[in-house]
């Protein structure tokens, strides 16, 4: 399959072309940039949902149940799950979280043509995603999936990259997982658009919900919003029912028992509402613009780095800096001025 065949294949819903395009992009094979250029005009239509949380909270179960739910609602669902990969050997074990064992497990997900599941290795990268997850999401988007799930590695630490790709970030917790400090430090509370407390049949669920509620209430935006509300509105806020009380979205807190499907359809409703809200409030545009900015800057930086590597003798330059012959600021200014003004 060459690049043209791949691009045309994506547009004509050829599954192998889709799978191959991802391989190109993930491995930065020659032609991957061309693929991304060609599909760009068709992106931006899917609702990208990020799922993150500590290990063992049931992210994969929730994702598979949500997939079933959105399929029932007639949506095509693409899934990208990121698993840890070794920075040393480059090897990885992938996709084993969503794909449960047992001959009745996930039957629908396995062979439903309206579901596409792809695993990616983080290849040793921190942040919860692989370097190319965003590009893979674009390919799925261009192919025509309505919903795209992105599941982070799930190591529980600093997995905040998900905000760079997702329109809606769902943070999943369970009763008694980690202590409050651990959760706060993990940095995932701030990025949540929706909270889920899964395994709600376990003891301690009220405590976790109460604590989350206090966290949500403490955030500055919410304090502002709530000052305008009456006590009766509070319940509606927490259920996610109210989101247009002001200009602010108040992250609802859902409880689920995912392996029994309890709470899933309510969660799906909430996810759809968030998207609606984001579109109407302009939040979506804002998020996507800032994402485009980050992406553009990354691309530019990457290109510049490549140029520098091509045009300058890096080893020599670095040596001068280490030997204190030159300082890095001066060197940087020299390089930039040469790049900009000399041809």
């Amino acid at each position, binding site marked *: 399959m060459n690049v043209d065949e791949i691009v045309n294949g994506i547009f004509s819903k050829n599954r192998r072309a889709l799978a191959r395009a991802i391989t190109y992009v993930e491995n930065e094979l020659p032609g991957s940039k061309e693929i991304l250029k060609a599909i760009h005009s068709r992106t931006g239509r899917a609702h990208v949902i990020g799922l993150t949380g500590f290990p063992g909270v049931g992210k994969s179960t929730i994702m598979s149940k949500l997939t079933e739910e959105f399929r029932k609602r007639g949506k095509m669902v693409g899934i990208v799950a990121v698993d840890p990969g070794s920075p040393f050997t480059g090897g990885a074990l992938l*996709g084993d979280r969503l794909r449960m064992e047992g*001959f009745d497990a996930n039957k629908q997900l*396995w062979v439903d043509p309206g579901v596409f599941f792809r695993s990616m290795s983080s290849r040793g990268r921190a942040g919860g995603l692989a370097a190319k997850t965003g590009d893979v999401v674009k390919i799925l988007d261009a192919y025509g999936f309505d919903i795209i799930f992105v599941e982070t590695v799930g190591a529980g630490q600093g997995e905040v990259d998900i905000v760079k790709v997702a329109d809606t970030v769902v943070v999943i917790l369970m009763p008694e997982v980690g202590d409050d400090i651990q959760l706060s430090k993990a940095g995932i509370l701030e990025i949540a658009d929706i909270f889920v407390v899964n395994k709600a049949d376990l003891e301690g669920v009220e405590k976790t919900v109460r604590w989350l509620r206090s966290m949500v209430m403490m955030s500055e935006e919410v304090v502002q919003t709530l000052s305008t509300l009456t006590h009766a509105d509070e319940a509606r806020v927490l259920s996610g029912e109210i989101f247009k009380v002001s200009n602010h979205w108040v992250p609802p807190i859902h409880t689920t028992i995912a392996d029994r499907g309890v709470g899933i359809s309510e969660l799906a409703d909430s996810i759809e509402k968030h998207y609606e809200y984001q579109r109407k409030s302009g939040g979506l545009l804002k998020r996507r613009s800032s994402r485009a900015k980050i992406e553009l800057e990354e691309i530019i930086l990457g290109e510049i780095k490549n140029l520098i590597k091509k045009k300058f003798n890096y080893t020599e330059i670095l040596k001068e800096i280490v030997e204190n012959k030159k300082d890095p600021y001066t060197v940087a200014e020299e390089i930039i001025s040469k790049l900009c003004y000399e041809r």
Partner: protein
Amino acid sequence: MEEKKIRVVLAKVGLDGHDRGVKVLARFLRDAGFEVIYTGLHRTPQEVARAAVDEDADVVGISLHSGAHMTLVPKTIQYIKEYGGKPEEMLILVGGIIPNDDIPKLKELGVDEIFIPGTPISTIIEYIRENLKKKKGSINER
């Protein structure tokens, strides 16, 4: 440009639950730098084929100890085709208790190699590295 990682889909097809070999293999392939997608137990040929296509597998390793290989292996290959994949561009490997007589038959049906119990894993790794680049028309051809 990064090096193209070799993606391996490992699967237990059918009803047998003997997963010691395939799980140990999954670990060793990972440690050898491969990206391994292990699909777990009790998969049907359709399910394995779907994973092979969607994951753009370079290698599909099917493990079975149930004696059902003459039914389930050809079906898996057939479904890979049906789902738009090209089994001839993949390395299709079978591991498990496979009687001698069936080995040429499986090869005729499109299986590249059969590994019987006791095969050193280093042999399998070498085999994949050597033979993947010989696959005509595939992304791995060198």
